[in-house]
Structures are given as C-alpha cells and as structure tokens.
C-alpha cells in the first residue's frame, strides 16, 4: 500500500516555508490549532484564517428542516495528495510565512469545525488572498462527499455551480 503516500512530494522543489496539511477523523480545536500556528510564525505581521463549521440551522427553512448531523466521506489516496498539491501551489503564488490546512471527515454535529485554513504573511494582502484562494479551491477540487441528516433522514448534497464560479475568479 505504499502508493498511498507516494505522490506527496510531487510538487517539484521544496518551498521556502512548508505547509501544515492535515486530515482529521475526529473533532479538533480550531482555536488551539490557530494559536499554535500563529506562535510558530512570529515574523508574520498578519494571520488570516477561515473556519468552516456545521451550521446549527440551514437558515430560512422551517425548524423541522434543520441539519441534525453532517457526514463527510473522502477517498484517502486522492484527498491528501490533492490537499498537499494545492498547498504547494499557494506557497508558490504568494509570499507566505506559513500555511495551515486542516479538514475533517466523518460524522459531525452542529457547531463542529469542518475546515480551518490559515495563512501567515508579512503583508496583509497576501494572507487574505492565500486563505481565500485556498478555500475556493479546497471546496471545488477536493474529493469530499457530503451527507446531511435532516428530519432523521440522510441525503447526499449535490455539487453547486457556485463553486466553479468561485474558482474562475482566480484565473
């Protein structure tokens, strides 16, 4: 099974600052991860982060339509290499001190963190752009399938055209 991780170093030469890319199968503390990341990059003037969490309600719908749980499935031989390749692309495009990408899989409850992306940079604009780019591309290029539990029933969530529009902003 050694092919599972054989493509991690496919990005060419080593970037100046390595990315911290992790997949978690159980819950994590975004604030602890962010604090550690920030402290690890004292030369960065700014850290931009995005935290995605399971919404406690899908919004305008009736109370009976609230999402009770969320499940993310992924295919390990593709997910982690794709996340590493995305991270290398981001480090090559912006001048960052550090990049953090954490993604959950498995079953999550409302309020649970799903994804945490953080970019540390000497310049604010680079940090914002890198975090924004990372989220746009993580959402559209990563191999995650999502099920929501609503009214006791699990249903798969379909792909959205909006994600492709988000990516088009960067080309």
């Amino acid at each position, binding site marked *: 099974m050694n092919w599972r991780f054989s493509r991690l170093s496919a990005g060419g030469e080593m970037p100046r600052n390595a990315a911290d890319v992790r997949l978690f199968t159980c819950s994590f503390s975004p604030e602890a991860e962010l604090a550690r990341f920030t402290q690890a990059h004292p030369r960065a003037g700014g850290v931009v982060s995005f935290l995605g969490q399971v919404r406690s309600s899908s919004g305008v719908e009736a109370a009976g339509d609230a999402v009770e749980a969320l499940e993310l499935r992924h*295919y390990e031989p593709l997910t982690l290499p794709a996340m590493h390749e995305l991270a290398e692309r981001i480090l090559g495009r912006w001048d960052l001190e550090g990049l953090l990408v954490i993604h959950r899989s498995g079953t999550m409850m409302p309020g649970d963190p799903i994804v945490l992306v953080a970019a540390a940079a000497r310049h604010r604009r680079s940090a914002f752009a890198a975090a924004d780019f990372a989220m746009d591309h993580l959402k559209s290029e990563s191999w995650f399938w999502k099920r929501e539990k609503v009214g006791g029933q699990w249903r*798969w969530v*379909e*792909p*959205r055209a909006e994600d492709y529009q988000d990516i088009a902003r960067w080309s």
Partner: protein
Amino acid sequence: MALKLVFLGPLEDLAGAPEREVASAPSVSQVLARLEPDLAAALSSARVKCALNGAIVHDRDAEVLKSGDELAFLPPVSGG
C-alpha cells in the same frame, strides 16, 4: 485473488455498500460489464471518475488491472 471496488458518495447507496470484492478482470470496462446493469450504467457516466490505486484512469479499455488492485468510483463532489 480479486479486485477491490470502492464506491464514493451516492454511489455507495446504489451499490448497497461502500466497498465490494470482485473477481479480477483485465480492464475497467470488463469489470463494469459483470456488475448489475443499473450500477454499471451509473459508473459508466462521464461525470463519474475512476481511480486505480489512487491515480485517475483515462482509458477504461486499457488492460492494466492486476489482482489486488483497488478501483475507486468517484462521482462529482458535494458543494457547500
């Protein structure tokens, strides 16, 4: 020996399980030909990608499969 098939996302429901062992065959097309017709049709969709041991398969007629290989079927990922 056999092949391991992995069904991601909604394909899991159609296949009845997230994984399945099948008898080995030389190409992806030949593997599909032995499955239930509705499942084979879904897996043959242009929107469903196929990965052999983690690498996307571009030619499903290529006779490249070996016993012990893992074939994953990947429908479009979810939005949101």
